[in-house]
């Protein structure tokens, strides 16, 4: 295919381009470049989704070189969904960030964001394990940079902790890749599937263990979540949103790909293995929710909610039976949580900016002062609780359905209990917002810029509407090979 018209290549090149330009441009032009670039990327992602919907998966060698010189780009319905989600959420977040940082933008914010998105897009489009490592590293380092860009001592400490986790995670992954290359002499995900199916020496089991564990660390699945609450809770709101909504999903995506692709032979040989991620997922739901219920600071509450919501993603692994329910449930959860969590973090950012208090108690009276932002927070909460109509609800429904289908009733029970726990921490915030504050009538706080309120509402509304119009997403997933 002609490179000029290739949406796959542009999805990686465009963010690299505007990230670099933003580095040399002043702060004035950074956001404009980012917005223009993301609009282009969103169009590319839409074109790609259209293509995948009509032709099934598409893949080719960028630049026309054969492997191993050429870089193999590959996209199917799953990649298309991830790409659409990433570009859509990122666009809303840069619009928000532009206004949020109107006083002072953290150093290199736009550049790091561009590299982060380029890394994620490349990750969704790569088909070989080594390139995937490179993208993982790019995403991880850019994300650490964004956390550190907050500047305070707590942020630096959180960033260092995050750096440690992400380096150990990708180190384990790289070690696994090396073992695999040593065993088979290839790192192509599509070739490895058959090779591992034919013969799996002990080194490959070790490699799979290292790679998957490394990814769990990066995804912050319980008990590897220790780095997430300080990093996501301490970063500036647009960064928190970016990390919670998208970045943890990138390593989950890779985990899922490996599980269903190259390592399918291993996981099918030992079916009990699938219980491990599910058990950790269930623990994550219970522990994360409990911590969110107890949290004192608003953004820490939301960060622990992410810990819990990641748990749902891993409940699907024992449920890949004959049907497509489990995959649909997982990807709907990724999408719905991505939209809702981004909305919730930036809504919280606005609430904190206006009230001046980082504590949950600072929300008091927001129903009167900041109705639009609070409404966005509430709608996002509806999706997180899995209440209808919302994408989170459909994901939960499919998960319970799949659990009953495969005879894992306990997973259905966990999903329902998790929804109730989410209800506790979401309504903990919402009911406070309705409390009448004393100085209610006089000196109403300043209204924030409209874009801060409406981007949050748009993302939250998208997570709700997903609950009524999920068929395009389901249809995209129909062609995903497992």
């Amino acid at each position, binding site marked *: 295919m002609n490179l000029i018209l290739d949406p796959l290549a542009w999805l990686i090149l465009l963010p690299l381009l505007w990230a670099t330009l933003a580095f040399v441009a002043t702060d004035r032009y950074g956001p404009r470049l980012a917005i223009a670039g993301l609009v282009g990327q969103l169009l590319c992602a839409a074109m790609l989704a259209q293509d995948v919907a009509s032709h099934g998966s598409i893949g080719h060698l960028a630049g026309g070189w054969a492997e191993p010189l050429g870089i193999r780009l590959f996209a199917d319905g799953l990649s298309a969904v991830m790409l659409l989600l990433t570009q859509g959420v990122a666009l809303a977040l840069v619009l928000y960030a532009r206004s949020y940082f109107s006083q002072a933008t953290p150093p290199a914010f736009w550049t790091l964001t561009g590299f982060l998105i380029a890394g994620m897009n490349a990750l969704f489009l790569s088909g070989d394990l080594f390139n995937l490592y490179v993208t993982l590293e790019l995403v991880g380092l850019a994300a650490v940079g964004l956390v550190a860009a907050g500047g305070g001592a707590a942020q630096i400490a959180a960033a260092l902790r995050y750096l440690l986790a992400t380096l150990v995670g990708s180190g384990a992954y790289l070690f696994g890749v090396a073992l695999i290359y040593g065993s088979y002499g290839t790192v192509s995900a599509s070739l490895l599937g058959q090779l591992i199916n034919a013969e799996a020496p002990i080194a490959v089991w070790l490699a799979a263990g290292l790679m998957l564990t490394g990814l769990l660390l990066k995804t912050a699945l319980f008990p590897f979540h220790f780095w997430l609450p300080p990093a996501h809770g301490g970063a500036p709101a647009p960064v928190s949103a970016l990390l919670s909504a998208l970045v943890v999903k990138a390593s989950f995506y890779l985990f899922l790909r490996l599980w269903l692709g190259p390592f399918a032979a291993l996981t099918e040989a030992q079916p009990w293995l699938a219980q491990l991620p599910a058990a950790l997922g269930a623990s994550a739901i219970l522990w994360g929710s409990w911590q969110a219920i107890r949290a004192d600071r608003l953004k820490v509450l939301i960060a622990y909610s992410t810990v819990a919501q990641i748990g749902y993603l891993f409940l699907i692994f024992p449920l890949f039976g004959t049907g497509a329910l489990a995959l649909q449930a997982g990807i709907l959860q990724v999408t719905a949580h991505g939209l809702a969590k981004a909305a919730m973090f930036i809504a919280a950012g606005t609430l904190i900016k206006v009230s001046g208090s980082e504590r949950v108690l600072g929300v008091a009276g927001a129903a009167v002062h900041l109705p639009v932002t609070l409404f966005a927070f509430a709608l996002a909460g509806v999706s997180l609780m899995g209440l209808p109509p919302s994408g989170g609800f459909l994901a939960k429904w499919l998960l319970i359905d799949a659990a009953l289908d495969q005879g894992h009733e306990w997973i259905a029970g966990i999903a329902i209990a998790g929804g109730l726990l989410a209800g506790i921490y979401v309504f903990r915030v919402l*009911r406070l917002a309705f409390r009448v504050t004393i100085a209610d009538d006089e000196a109403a706080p300043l209204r924030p810029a409209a874009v801060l309120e409406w981007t949050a509402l748009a993302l939250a509304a998208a997570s709700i509407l997903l609950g009524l119009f999920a068929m395009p997403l389901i249809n995209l997933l129909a062609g995903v090979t497992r």
Partner: protein
Amino acid sequence: MNLNELLPLAVIASSLVPALLIFTLPEESVRLRTALNLFAAITKIILVGALLIGVRGGEDYAFRHTVLPGMDLVFKVDALALLFVSLSAVLWLFTTLYAIGYLEHAPNRSRFFGFFSLCVTATMGIAMAGNLFTFFIFYELLTLATFPLVVHRGTPQAMRGGTIYLAYTLVGGALLLAGIVWLHHLAGHTEFVQGGLGNALHGINPTILQAVFLLLIAGVGVKAAIVPLHGWLPQAMVAPAPVSALLHAVAVVKAGAFGVVRIVYEIYGIEFVQTLGVLLPLAVIAAITILWGSLRALFQDDLKKRLAYSTISQVSYIVLGVALFGPLGTIGGLVHLVHQGIMKITLFFCAGNFAETLGIHKVSEMDGAGRRMPLTTLAFSIGALGMMGAPLTAGAVSKAWLSDGAAAAGMDWAIWVLTASSLLNAAYFLPILYRAWFRPAPDSWPHEEIAARGWRETAWLLLLPPLFTATATIGVGIFADAAFSPLAWAQLIARREYVSLGQ
């Protein structure tokens, strides 16, 4: 898309669109908001009128939209749906009028009316839901949309009431969800079918079906305030009076009772429920709720709390009617769905008037209120007499059909329950009427806010709605045999449910 698909959507839109518009209105635009509210309520009534005529003539109205493979959002307007839709649509108009008067000069009215319209939207969705999936979507939407209304005042008591309300309804929703997905998994779909799912349920382990039935009924039983799931209702009475009207008559408890009707008749099918052996336990629970609610009402001094316990008792009349095997009981239960709504909304309007006008919140403060506010007290008396089942009122019609149903089903004990409940109703309502009419008025009222002007004892908008609904209480009693009366409509439904059974 043809008209028959469009009409159900229009019924939803006629309150959803105004809700969204009202949210965006600034607090000061009172006239625009009022106009929008009334326009929406009247539009809805016109739409419902068109549907009533169509459905009576055998027309089918359905809208279907696929959400997930094999799972559709379905709106289906059948006779049963319309029973609930028309009740809510008409009472919405009166409640809106009342709320405009009640909340005059109160803060945050845009938020209030926005969520109010959203509640009505949810109720319409519940009524017209064509399967349990759709039912659940709107059932939970109702929970979410009522919460801001319950805590509207923002006081610590309101917060407490709201939290308890949420705790009950969210857990109820979780149970309902578990039941629905389980049923969906077992039967392959959850469409409401006259006569029940039939073959789809045969061959499934009866114990599992009983468990699913328990989950479903517990799920809707929370909103229907069936004992022991009723604890939220007396707490939620801290909300403003129009919200109480919404909770007790227009939407919430009705949604629960309506859910019981759908689940028993159109999911399991009344005969199958009977063979499963869960109909009698349901009747017993309903009977316990009827007596328990009435007993507790006796001991409440707070007027709205007394009314709340009365609601707990009265809503289970509907459940009891459903659980009496046979068309007479069905008719009694269904007609009470409407009749209880009209009577209870009258009582809550009046309680709101006493509180707003004179600051009366307690039964013990009611002395002489009839002299100061004769019209309100008259409306209250009609509502109360109706609840007792006095002749020529709506309540008499309900109770007659329920008793006949119990006799026909051979459940004589249910007749005793109904009689005992009527006596208890009299025991907790008559003292109020006695105090209001025959005791001398105190020197000063607890907190007189609205002065009497001539024979206008309180604000217009507070006075007219209860007078209308009180008139309706008598009207539906006297003209029970008219063509579009609630009774005639309940008979139509019962005829259709039981005809499909015979086939």
